[in-house]
Structure formats: structure tokens, C-alpha cells
């Protein structure tokens, strides 16, 4: 088997909150293979989002290593991480996180532009058309529905053609119909670009569409669940 695209080894994460330091992940080891769709499930507070953030280099592991495409994310500084994401990672959040002062088109074009793509806007337009928002390009996030905003966020994550898509409950803030549409788009994107997808979800029917499911429980990989696979 080829080298995994994401490889986490003995990762722990300690966050300092108001009530002192809390260890959230206690030695998680996990591999994700290229082209694979991995579902991350587990009860609320089990550490799914935290793990996803670590994979995207948005959070820094307290100990252990996070390897992505053979590179050690834990050894990179902030800017190196940003450049790495620019080329290899697309992230989609539950609450969209569009920049409110930018139009849909500008939001989508931004990562391309940051990467220095000369045709950032053309590609962004294409991407928005692909998610069915050809008529909403010049709208600000405040002028769009939640479903539309999430589609913009999807287009933004997919535009740079990342090797890996990280999605954290992308349908959590949407109703059933909208959520289903988003999921179809997400899986469509994965299929079209052959991207690896890591999807955090609570919905069993979504988890069922994944190649593999990893359960988390209290900051650890849920062995019982893994065994049940």
C-alpha cells in the first residue's frame, strides 16, 4: 500500500482554557489513504473538530507528529502551514466562515489569488457555476441564505484543487434538503478531482457514504467502534 496522505502518530492536544489546561486528545494515531473518504464520528465533545483542525494545520499538536503528504506539519511555522494549505488542503466549516466584506466571487477567488493564480477570477466563476451560484456571484454573504453560503464555502475550498478536503459538519447548520444538496456537491467534488475527503458528521446516513469510519470517544480512537467495522 502507498504511503498515507495523512498520518497522525500519538497526537495529543492540550488547550489552555479559563479553567486551566485540558488535554483534549490523548495520543491519537490515524492514517488516511490517498483518495479515501474517511468519516469521523463520535459524541459531542469527543474531539472530532480538534482532530480535523490538526490535520489542516489550523491547530498545533502538543505532542506527536502530524504528517501530510510526507511533510511534518508540526515542524512548520504559521506561514509554512498557510502555504501548505494553499496548495493541498481545502477546509469547510459548519458555519461557513465566509468573509462578510467580500462578495461570493471574491471569497472564492481569494485562495487562488493568494496562491498567485493569474486566472483566479475566471476559475472562481467556474467554481461558483459548478455549485449552482452563477447568479449570486456579486452578492455579499449577508445577502445569501445559509445553503447558498455553504455552497460558496465549498467552492472556495475546492477552487485551488486541493489534494485533501476537510469538512467539519458542513450540513450541521442546514435543513435536510439543503444539507443533502451540499453533501451531493461535496461528494461530487471529491469524485471529479479525485480528492481525499475527511468528513466529520453526526448523521449516520452520511457516515454510511464514507469508505471508512473512525470513531472518537473522549479524545481517543474508539477501539470498540473500530473493531465493529
Amino acid at each position, binding site marked *: 500500500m502507498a504511503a498515507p496522505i495523512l498520518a497522525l502518530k500519538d497526537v495529543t492536544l492540550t488547550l489552555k482554557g479559563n479553567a486551566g489546561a485540558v488535554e483534549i486528545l490523548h495520543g491519537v494515531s490515524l492514517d488516511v489513504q490517498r483518495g479515501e473518504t474517511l468519516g469521523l464520528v463520535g459524541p459531542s465533545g469527543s474531539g472530532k*473538530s*480538534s482532530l480535523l*483542525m490538526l490535520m*489542516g494545520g*489550523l*491547530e*498545533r499538536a502538543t505532542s506527536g507528529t502530524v504528517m501530510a503528504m510526507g511533510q511534518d506539519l508540526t515542524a512548520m511555522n*504559521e*506561514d509554512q*502551514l*498557510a*502555504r501548505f*494549505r*494553499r*496548495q493541498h488542503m481545502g*477546509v469547510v*466549516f*459548519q*458555519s461557513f*466562515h*465566509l*468573509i*462578510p*466584506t*467580500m*462578495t461570493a466571487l*471574491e471569497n472564492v*477567488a*481569494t*485562495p487562488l*489569488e*493568494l*496562491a*498567485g*493564480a*493569474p486566472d*483566479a*477570477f475566471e476559475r472562481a466563476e467556474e467554481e461558483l457555476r459548478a455549485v449552482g451560484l452563477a447568479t449570486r456571484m456579486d452578492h*455579499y*454573504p*449577508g*445577502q445569501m441564505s445559509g445553503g447558498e453560503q455553504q455552497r460558496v464555502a465549498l467552492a*472556495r*475550498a475546492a477552487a*485551488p484543487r486541493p489534494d485533501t478536503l476537510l469538512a*467539519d459538519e458542513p450540513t450541521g447548520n442546514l435543513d435536510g434538503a439543503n444539507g443533502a444538496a451540499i453533501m451531493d456537491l461535496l461528494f461530487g467534488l471529491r469524485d471529479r478531482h479525485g480528492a481525499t475527503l475527511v468528513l466529520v458528521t453526526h448523521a449516520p446516513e452520511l457516515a454510511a457514504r464514507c469508505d471508512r469510519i473512525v470513531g472518537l470517544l473522549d479524545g481517543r480512537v474508539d477501539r470498540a467502534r473500530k473493531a465493529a467495522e
Partner: protein
Amino acid sequence: MSVAVAARIARRELRGGLSGFRVFLACLALGVAAIAAVGSVRESIQDGLRRNGAVLLGGDAQMSFTYRSADAAERAWMAGIATRVSETVDFRSMAVVERDGVAERALTEVKAVDGLYPLYGAVELEPALPLDAALTGDGAVMARVLADRLGLSVGDGFRLGEKAFTLRAILIRAPDDAAGGFGLGPPTILRRAALEGAGLLAPGTLFDTDYRLALPAGADLAALEAEATRRFRDSGMRWRDSRNAAPGMTMFVERVGAFLVLVGLAGLAVGGVGVSAAVRAYLDGKTAVIATLKTLGAEGRTIFMAYLMQIGVLAALGIGLGLVLGGAVPLLLAPLIEAQLPVPADIRFHPGPLAEAALYGALTALLFTLWPLARTAEVRAAALFRDASGPVRAMPGPRVLAALVALAALLVGAAAVLSGVPDLALWAAAGILGALLLLVAAARAVRWLARRGARAKALRGHSALRLALGAVGGPGGEATSVVLSLGLGLSVLAAVGQINANMQAAIAEELPGVAPSYFIVDIQPDQLPGYLARVERDPGVHKVQTAPMLRGVITRINGRPAREVAGDHWVLNGDRGVTSSDSAPEGTVITQGAWWPEGYDGPPVMSFADEEAREMGLKLGDAVTVNILGRDITATITSFRVVDFSTAGIGFVLSMNPGALQGAPHTAISTIYADAAAEAPLLRDLAAAYPNITAIRVRDAIDRVSEVLRGLAAAVTYGAMATLVTGLFVLIGAAAAGERARVFEAAVLKTVGAVRGQVLAYFALRSAILGAAAGLVAVFAGGLAGWAVMTFVMEADYTFEPVSALLIVSGGVLATLLAGLGFALRPLAARPARVLRARE
């Protein structure tokens, strides 16, 4: 009933604390404090002037005559009402020091006093001797600048006219310094008796005689003034008393104070922008609360009231803070301020100016918060389920608009009435309003341009710049409030800079081009031929003008008292220079009528200055009665002519045929236009030949004027700085308010692959664009104000002054950059995961 409900809602909401209102409070407090402080200092100075009136004047009352001493009737009347009468003679002369055959000359304002001077207060000398001791025999004292200029030390001799004097002491301060007003030269004090034989006070010489009166306790000054005026005004008597001892100074303090208050109002307007932005932001954050209250059945009115009450409480707090600050700072700095002032001031607590400042503060707060408050009524319950930043009406509704107009009118009206300079206040209000409108338009234009720019194909790929433009042009009120507040602050500064530079240029550069080198006064008629021979022979002199001069008071017009006909025109106040000429002097422009024929010897005729005649409502054929040295001369107006007072040449309102003034003692004045190199030798010769004449170097006088102007400009600049500081508060407030949004943006940008340098460049550009926009608009507005003032008030040319403009634009950029980047540190440092997680 709904009031009680609103009050309860307001109280609950206020429990949240004041943290969101720091900028609101700072803006209001600062604006109110500045106005209160200026007002307090002004009031203290005026109070000091009032209470020390008798000392400042040198008597309880003063009667002055130009050109002459009091006559027997006047002396008798003064002796009748006063317990003591002190006589002083004021004139200008040249102090001369001869050293190794070289003569140093300097213009001085001589005060020749009697033994009673000063009636009140004491003259301060160095060394500290009594004035009497210093002035015995040929003793004299003079100001330090004069002694220094002449290289004199105590004990040295100098000459005035043909008489030698000894400098016995340096004059540090005379009690009546401030009452004298603007002098052309530093003062010298000596005994009236010592002037005998100096040849300085020949008939026709320009001098003033002042009689300071010590009055019995409880004398009715108003009644005495009325009486004296009735009896002696037509013979040129001028009255002054301790109620307003130093009218020039009082007026000056009043004007400067009023002007600073107006600048303070501009500051308050800047603060208003901040207040408005703060309230808007606060209410935006309350959309959900308001929508919920509506869902629960609250009426728009109740909600409006609830928030009006909150803002009212906060405004009261801000104003209170401002009053404490504005009242206390002058008190704390009292020793410092008092030492800086040329007049006695006792800085104390004055409720009047504080009330004035509070009124301005309250009106401003209401003016700038009413519209955002009114919008609370428009929030629909549905806002709960949609984004709050939906479409907002661009204009307030008619009722709100009417209220806003009424409030603005009230504010402007209050400023016009309370400042005491209604014209200036109205102009300033128009200027501030104009600048605000201009800035609103500019802010819109900037946002539109930024939006266009962000979409421009040419900018694609320059991500930081495009992001910045997109942010400036995008939704959210930051651009508008920064351009407005900073722009208004900078506009005031730019206007001051432009006006000052142009005034300085007009006075220091343009005027000397057209102005004479010297003004020579007190040339005796028999000296005139010799004088002219010397001057005209000099190759360095390109023009010399002479004119006989007398002084007279216009008493009647067409047989009726002049004031009844022409009102309180300045030409009627005191005596005016009167000249005569057989034929129209070269270059005279007659606007109506004709000059009298050469050698005319009929009944008296006169030519009157055109502009003044129009203001006074005079027409050809009117008979004007002028009292010259006690003699009434009635002359018929046969022509009007242009008289230009702005070039410092010879300018007389009245010119008569020579025959009409026959026999009246007079002297000649003369202007000499000469090359700079010829000036000194010419003056040396003239002064040696005619020691009685006084030469006023126009350059020196111009320097004095521009010095005073510079001081004024400095004072106003400090005022403008206060405005700018308020602008900076607003700026910092906007930056602080935007910090949360910046943190979020930075996190998202990093997530999609932005390195910190790119994020920083974006933030910096975003700030700089706003700063540059504010600066550019300010320079434009300042230039416009400068042009208007120069063109319509000063009637002079306007040229754009680039240095201060450049400073202002770069200052604007720097300020926004500092404020913006100061609040960029947290966003840059924040880890994306933490930020975005908190937002899930």
C-alpha cells in the same frame, strides 16, 4: 405607561456595563471638555480685565484727545468730577544713540507722564526703583527690547528729538500696558516736563493726550460717560472707563475665545461622528434583542424610548466627564496659563462656560444619535431569522429628518448667540456642515471606487490590495466613520494651514512689493521743501508721496448729528485723518463727481472715500461738518474716489480743498518707496536733518503684524489639534470595534492559505487607503475654506499651499496605519482553529 416599561428595559440593558461605550464617552467628553476649558479661560481673562479695570486703565476713567491737550472747559469739567487727574502724552518718536559717529535709531512709543502717574498700580522697573526716582531730571525708562536694539545699558544716554535723556531703568511692566493695545514700537516713559526743548510736540504733530481720572467712590460711570460724550464728543474727546479698560484686549480675547469655541464645535462634530458610529454599532449588536422584544409585543415607540434613555444616561455621563475635565484642567494649569497671559487673569471656576459646553454636548449627542436610534423602530421581528445587515434605508424618515434639522438649527443658533460672533458662528457652522456633506459624499465615492477597483481586472493577482479595496468598499460602516471623523479633524487643520500660509504670504511677501519702505510722520510744513529735495534726489527712491494731515471728527451730516444719519460707522468713531490737495493726486480714481478746479477758492468742498460713503449712505452734494481742533468746517461732497487701505500707502477718507483748511496747524505725512539698499542712508540723513520726524519702517510693522498672526495661528492650531485628537479617538474606536472582525478575517484567510505577510499587507493597505482618502478630502475641504476666506473675507489672492497639505495627507495615512496596525497584532497572532471554533 410605556415610559415606565422603556425605563425598565433601559435599566436592564445598562447593567451590561460601559465597555462598548468607551469611544462614545471619550468623544463626547473630549469635545465638551475642550469647549468648557476654552470658555473657562476666556471667562477668567474677561473677569480679570473687568475686576482690574481701574489698574489696567490707569484710572477710573480716561478722557483722550488727539492732537491737543484738553481746553479750559474740558479741564474744568474733569476737575469737577475727579479727585485726581493725571495727564500723559503719547506719541511716536525715534530714539537715537550716537556711538563713534554712527547713529542707531529705533521707533518707540513715548509716554510722557506727570507726577501722578500711575494713579493705580505700580510701574515695575529693573533695577527696582520707584518711577519718580527714575524719571527725575532727564531720566527715562524703556522696554528691554528697545534698549537691546539700541545697545543701551542702564546709565547710558540717548536722544529723542533734540533732547538728551538718560536711561535709568528697564521697564518691565506698566499697569496700563494692556490698555494701550497694539503698538508699533516698544515703549519709553519719561516726564512730560523733560520734553521741553526736544522740539517734538510742535503744533500739528500727531500725539494723544490722556487724562486719567480718579473718581470718588460710587461714581456713576455710565452717567459720567453720557455726560462727557454729550459735552465733548464733537471736539474729538474719547471716553474710556474701568468697566472696559482695555477694549482692544477684551475684543481680542473675546474673538480668539469665540474662534476657539467654534473650533471646539468642529471637534464636537468629529466626536459626534464617533458617537454616532458607537451607537450604531451598539444598536446593531442589539438587533436580536430588539427583534425579540418585538416578537414579545413591544411597540416601536417603547423600544425607541428604551434606547433613547440609555443613550441619554450615557450622554449625561460623557458630558459630566467633559465638564469635570474642562473645568478642572484650567484650574490645575492656572499658574502656567496665568504666567503666559499679558493681562491679569484669575483662573477660577465659572459656571457659565460649563453650561454652554454642556448644552453643545447635549445637542450634539442628540443630533448624532437620533437617526440610528430611530432605526430601532424599523427593526422587524423577522430580523431574528435573517442576517441583520440587510438593506437599510439611505435616508431617515420625514419626522426624524425634521427633528434632525430642528436640532441642527438649535445647535447653530446657540453657537451664534452664545459665541457673540454670530456671523463667524454661522460661517463656521456652514463650513462644518459643508465639510461633513463633502466627507459623506467622499466616503461614498471612496467606497464606490474601492468596489470598482476590487473588481478591476488590472488588480487581479494583487491580492492584498484587492482584499483591502474590497473591504473598504464592502458592507459595514467603518469606511464612512473613519473618513468622516478623521477627515473632519484634518479638514480643520488643513483650513488653518491654508489660511495661515496665505495670510503670511500676503503680509510678508506680497505686501512689501506694493507697500512703501517708510512711513514718515510729523514733517513740519517748513521742513517739507528740504525733505522733498533730499528724497527726490536719491536715485534709490522710485516714488515719494506727501500729503498734509490734520485730524478731525465728523460731527454732522446735512446739519443733523452724523450718527443719526450714518449709524455707528467706524469712520464716525473718534477722529479721522483729513488731508487736502489742490488737484487730484496722481493715480486717483474718481467714481462719481469731479475734483475741484485747480486754485479753487470758493466754499469748502470735499472728496469722500467711495466704499465708506456708500456704507454711510452719502451722496454727492451732502454737506459734511468736520470738527478740526475745535473749529467746525462744513464742506460739500463733490466727488467720491477709491481709497485702498490694504497697500499701506497713504489713504484718507476725507480730502478737502486746501483753502478750507487754511490756518489749521498741520504736519505732513509722507511715504517713501525705495530700494532696500537706499533705505538706511536715507533715513540717517533725514533723521539728522529733521530730528522731530518719526520714520516708521513698514517692514517692521509688517513683521509685528505677522508675528501676531503667527501667534493666533498657533492658538488656532492647538484648537484644531484637539479636534484631531477627537478624530483619533474615533479612529481608534473604529479600529478597536473592527478588531473582532479582523481576527476572524485573518483566521479565514490563513485557513485558505494566506501567510502573515499577506494578511498584514491587507490590513495596512486597508487602513492606508482610508487615511489617504480622509487626508485628500481634508486637503480639498481645507483648500476650499482657505480660498473662501482669502477671496471673500481678506479680498486677497489664494494660492494652494502644498507643504501643510502633504503633511496632512501623510498624517492621515500614518494615523490610520498606526490605529489599524495597533489592532492587527491580535488577529495576526491568533491561531485559526481557536478563532473559528469560537464562532461555530
